[in-house]
């Protein structure tokens, strides 16, 4: 298994533990990642609101790079995944846009064909690697751990451009948690928005969203939450204490990045998975293993 690897900006900036843990897990599972080092930011859905065509062009350039290598793209960020899949969906369903895009890409010697697939690590583990094969690699099952999945938005909606699983009743995180030996906790909010997109614009609203869902997970006795999106991780982990204070509550729910959870079950040493970089301490969870 080999992919054109697109870690995204946050994994290379404020979430280095996501970048590092992905490298550890990929190495352990024999997944080859060829990083697209010259790829640009996906635009996070915000660049699109300054200049939609520019956003299409920049992402088409990234796709062209992967196609040139003959590889599919692997992301570890739901937001990158969602923005990429929307751009690809637009290009593949609008021949005029595709032609216009390729005319621009031609100026930098590139071309987007439309052959590549774009997959989040979560999807790649399920579709390409296979959960039964993954289960065979588990050496430290997450037994007895109640785990609250947090999907967030971009890996589920809009369904037209994603088309991986039912956005109404997703099961991918549940399947993954189960094969790793954990116990899934369902709670109100697992498919809702973490608030990150408006964290710097409508801070109070963003805090209320995150704190409400973290509180729900805590009330369901979750040992930790797990998310496929580093932006959700910022809302849920980095800002957890501030958001809890905002709604006059106190929460203490550790939040794992997806590959960190996989890495734990694969027996990768804790220090290599970057838990010390979390704002909400993981110590209690790690001791309980």
């Amino acid at each position, binding site marked *: 298994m080999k992919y054109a690897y697109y870690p995204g900006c946050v994994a290379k900036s404020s979430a280095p533990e996501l970048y590092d843990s992905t490298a550890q897990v990929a190495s352990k599972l024999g997944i080859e990642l060829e990083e697209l080092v010259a790829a640009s930011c996906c*635009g996070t*859905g915000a660049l699109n609101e300054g200049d939609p065509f520019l956003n299409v062009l920049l992402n088409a350039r990234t796709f062209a790079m992967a196609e040139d290598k003959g590889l599919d793209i692997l992301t570890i960020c739901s937001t990158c995944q969602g923005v990429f899949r929307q751009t690809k969906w637009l290009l593949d369903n609008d021949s005029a846009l595709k032609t216009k895009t390729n005319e621009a890409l031609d100026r930098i010697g590139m071309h987007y064909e439309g052959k590549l697939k774009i997959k989040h690590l979560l999807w790649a583990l399920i579709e390409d690697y296979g959960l039964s094969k993954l289960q065979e690699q588990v050496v430290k099952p997450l037994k007895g751990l109640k785990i609250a999945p947090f999907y967030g938005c971009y890996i589920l909606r809009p369904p037209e451009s994603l088309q991986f699983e039912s956005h109404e009743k997703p099961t991918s995180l549940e399947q993954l948690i189960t094969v790793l030996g954990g116990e899934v906790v369902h709670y109100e909010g697992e498919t809702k928005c973490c608030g990150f997109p*408006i964290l710097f614009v409508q801070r109070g609203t963003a805090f209320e969203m995150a704190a409400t869902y973290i509180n729900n997970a805590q009330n369901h006795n979750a040992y930790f939450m797990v998310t496929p999106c580093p932006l959700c991780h910022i809302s849920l982990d980095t800002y957890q204490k501030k958001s809890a204070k905002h709604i006059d509550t106190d929460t203490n729910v550790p939040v794992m990045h997806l590959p960190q959870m996989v890495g734990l079950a694969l027996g990768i040493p804790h220090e290599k998975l970057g838990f010390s970089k979390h*704002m909400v301490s993981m110590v209690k969870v790690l001791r309980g293993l």
Partner: protein
Amino acid sequence: METHEASFRILRFNPEQNEKSNYQTFRVKIDNRMTVLDALENIKHEQDASLTFRRSCRSGICGSCAMRINGLAKLACKTRARTEAERHGEVLVEPMLNMAPVIRDLVVDMSEFWREISRGTPWLIFDEALKESLNENLVTNEQLTVPAKMADCIMCGCCFSDCVSRVFDKNFNGPASLAKINRFVTDPRDKEGANRIHGLVEIGLWSCTHCYFCWSQCPRDVRPVSAISDLRVLSFKSLDPSQGARHVNALTDSVKNSGMLNEATLYLRTMRLAAIKDIDLMLKMAVKGKAPSPLKRPIPQIEEVRTLFRLTKGAKEK
């Protein structure tokens, strides 16, 4: 036709008899073709005549039968009962959210929704000058491409019910209202046209989180979140000085400069002095070795990115 029994768990409330709402379960024989509305009619006619819900056209046109089905706002007449029962093991039916109070059972008071629709003045403000110059105010198909889609909205309230931002921010006027406004901003017959943009920040233009529930739950495929993005583009281009536009501007500049998102400058340029609120957090992040650096080395082949900026003329500098 093959039938099987499914469980319908319905949130009931009668203000004359109960202080609180409670769930009541009914068993209904359903076949492949039955909608949730058919099942509710069946319950009303054969099991409990007091069950109360709105319905009219039964064809997904009037928007009356909007309710939450297994946690998501949908039109009962467009939702197949069997699909819901198979996916969730039951059909959970509740009144819409973000609209209070519940009048009875599945009927909500939609005043809040209508108030928010009105706040955006979603009606044609006719340009009298056109009346003098033309007998007919002709609009070409090309001119109406976007407005026609927005005009498909039947104001059922599904997007408003499931809007995550609206739950927490009562100043946000919601997706339906903004979609309606977009329909008139781009309508060549509207006197206000793009001028409508200037008032939008105050009614929540930048409050939408892009959760996409309004897209996934719209029974008419209006995709209000796309309309909101379109309005933001227009607002951004008309030199909107708000925090939301600053966020877009900072991100755009960051990609232009380094090819990547510069979290530090994005944060500082968006938050400005308010960034002081997070000094404690930034220090903790620095101690943990994860504070984002404002200094970003450009990606290899950054010139390609800048060429693409030049081709689209980039986003306007402010």
